[in-house]
């Protein structure tokens, strides 16, 4: 009896010991609150690539169909207006303009770290296969429940010097239209540039801006048209206006802002007495189609310009680094 009791006690004790030593998975880990998430870029480079490829696939589908149907899924703003016009022209002429090409490879992407919406991603492509200049793509996400859409495409000028941005793994900070600490605010810069386009060298803001390829070309075109109109006693007038809220700003690492904005322009040409005002280019002609020409023709252009606005104390001028210009509507009045 005594032996049995001792055995029982020993067994109970050993079982207790086993339970204590077994059942060991370690301490339950506790979640740690990390603050780094707020500082991380909104997208990884892979995500940016995936988004861009989805956008391009939508555009390519539209290009092949020569129809703008379904483009609004992945395009918006001035880019959608321009592409719609380009596709309409392509439908009329049978081929897309070479300038509509968007290379698939990129040289740089600028991803913001901002947590709110809208968000903008700036991506610079490589040059095209036929050695056209690089494209600056601006993809916007308006809200959490919408996807990124291609909002603007600007063809960068040959030799244009872009500011430096933080590497995409770290992420850049988005600016606003009212950013201070710059030569002028981004919104003002766009408005002044519109004035400069309209008034040329006589603009009061001419000294704020460095000379650029876009303005040179526009001036040359305007002079050519002007000369022709003058021969026919006609007149021509262009008005440029910055479109409200169609602006995207990204802060560069040197303190300046890269600003992409839409500037609409209306080109009104009035022919001399007894004459009809005709479209001034193949694109306008394609858009005008079979319309009946009158003495007056009003052509609406959508312009996308990319401006670098330097910091206030840099002593630099505002520089246009890229632009796009496309007639979207041709009407005879």
């Amino acid at each position, binding site marked *: 009896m005594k032996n049995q009791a001792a055995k029982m006690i020993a067994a109970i004790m050993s079982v207790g010991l086993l339970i204590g030593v077994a059942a060991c*998975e*370690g301490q*339950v880990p506790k979640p*740690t*609150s*990390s603050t780094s*998430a707020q500082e991380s870029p909104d997208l990884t480079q892979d995500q940016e690539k995936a988004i861009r490829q989805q956008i391009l696939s939508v555009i390519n589908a539209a290009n092949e169909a020569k129809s703008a149907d379904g483009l609004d899924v992945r395009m918006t703003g001035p880019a959608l207006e321009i592409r719609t016009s380009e596709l309409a022209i392509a439908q009329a002429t049978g081929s897309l303009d070479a300038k509509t090409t968007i290379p698939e490879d990129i040289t740089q992407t600028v991803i913001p770290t901002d947590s709110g919406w809208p968000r903008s991603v700036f991506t610079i492509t490589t040059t095209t296969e036929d050695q056209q200049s690089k494209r600056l793509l601006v993809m916007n996400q308006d809200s*959490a429940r*919408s996807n990124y859409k291609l909002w603007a495409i600007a063809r960068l000028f040959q030799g244009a010097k872009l500011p430096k941005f933080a590497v995409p793994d770290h992420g850049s900070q988005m600016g606003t239209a009212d950013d201070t600490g710059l030569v002028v605010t981004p919104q003002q810069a766009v408005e002044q540039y519109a004035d400069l386009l309209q008034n040329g060298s006589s603009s009061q803001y001419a000294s704020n801006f460095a000379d650029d390829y876009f303005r040179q070309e526009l001036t040359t075109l305007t002079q050519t048209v002007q000369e022709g109109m003058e021969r026919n006693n006609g007149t021509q007038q262009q008005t440029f206006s910055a479109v409200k809220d169609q602006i995207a700003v990204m802060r560069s690492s040197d303190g300046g802002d890269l600003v992409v904005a839409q500037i609409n322009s209306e080109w009104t040409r009035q022919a001399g007495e007894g004459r009809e005002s005709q479209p001034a280019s193949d694109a306008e002609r394609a858009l005008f189609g079979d319309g009946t020409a009158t003495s007056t023709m009003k052509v609406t252009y959508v312009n996308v310009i990319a401006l670098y606005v330097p910091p206030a104390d840099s002593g630099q001028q505002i520089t246009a680094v890229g632009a796009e210009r496309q007639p979207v509507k041709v009407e005879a009045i």
Partner: protein
Amino acid sequence: MTDVQEEHDKPSDTGRPSRHAMIMRGVVAPIFGLLAVASVIFGVLNATIWKPSSQITATTSVSGTQYVVTDPSVLTLVDTQATLTVQGQSGTQVCVAFGSSKDVTGWVAGYPYTRITGLSDWTTLSTEQASAQGTRESTDGAVDFQNSDMWSSVKCGTGSVSLSASEQDTDKLAIIDFGQSITTPATITLHWVRQTLPDFAMPLYFIGGLCVVLTILSASVFAMPPHKRRKRMVASEPVEVAEEVTVGQAVAGSLSGLRSAVKVRPKKRRRHARRADDGKKSRNGSAQNANETESEAPLVVDPSARNLVADQQHGESQGDDIHQTTVINTDELQAYFARLAQEMGDSQSSSGEDAESSTDAASLDDQDHQDHSEDMPEQEAQGDNDQMQNDHDSAAEEGGE
């Protein structure tokens, strides 16, 4: 323990280990040994059958909301290899996605949702009801959950869906969309595969090793007497020996000395008695009975026995020696008597008086023998050898009287 130490131990230990060594070797060392064995066994068990599972699966059940969102770092709480499985109502679509904290927050803005806040234990996920700040976006033109650009990975299924996280999703949140606010509870399971397991075996091996060392130490060094551990120099040995003698053996020696003094006396008595017998035979020619009974009587005469022997040995030149021995004997005998007095009681004091009184007696031996011879007839009259002790006592009483 070295051979030299053992050699040192043997003579001083007198062949038998001390109590300290017995406890150390018999109790403490086995306990440490058992602990060592137990530690190693538990270590092996922890490394094998009790090895912490690399598969951790935690489950919870949610209902009442359209969205379920994990807290930051919950998805990869145990390991980066995580799989989120949702078992919803069969026939309805359920989607799971991983996204950054700000994206998920933006998506659920204005909606109530269920938070998965962590592990309440190893098999249960803890949840909490929450409502996201912000205003609810109109669903017109909004993209479907699974088509959003924000998710790093997304998967939808009918009834149930499972999505695995990778190392890139360490700072991601998991968001579950049931399509509408669900009423039937859905089961959410997070499964991790642990790459690094907690190692409980190694500490136990370490403890086991320590116990082995302690076992050896307690059986050897700790079992040694403290002074041996401390002093191993040869020069200190004489001191040790002296100490041992004084402490241990002095008491035992004195006791045994006393004992032997008591025991030896009859022998001396007999030897003395034989000589006395010789004397008696020469005088009385009495029988052996007288010789045996004689041994009981001598207590009275006892203290002077040595002197008598010495006297007998140097009997021829008694005249010179007596004077010398007299001086020496006085001191020695006084001390001796003093000790005996404590041990033996009354009879000795009387014998001491006899001895003192007879110190100057040259024919002390003869007187003693005469005393003996005088006592003898009485004892012979009693005539019983077996009652020697009684006789002895009676003789002592008589002596005391």
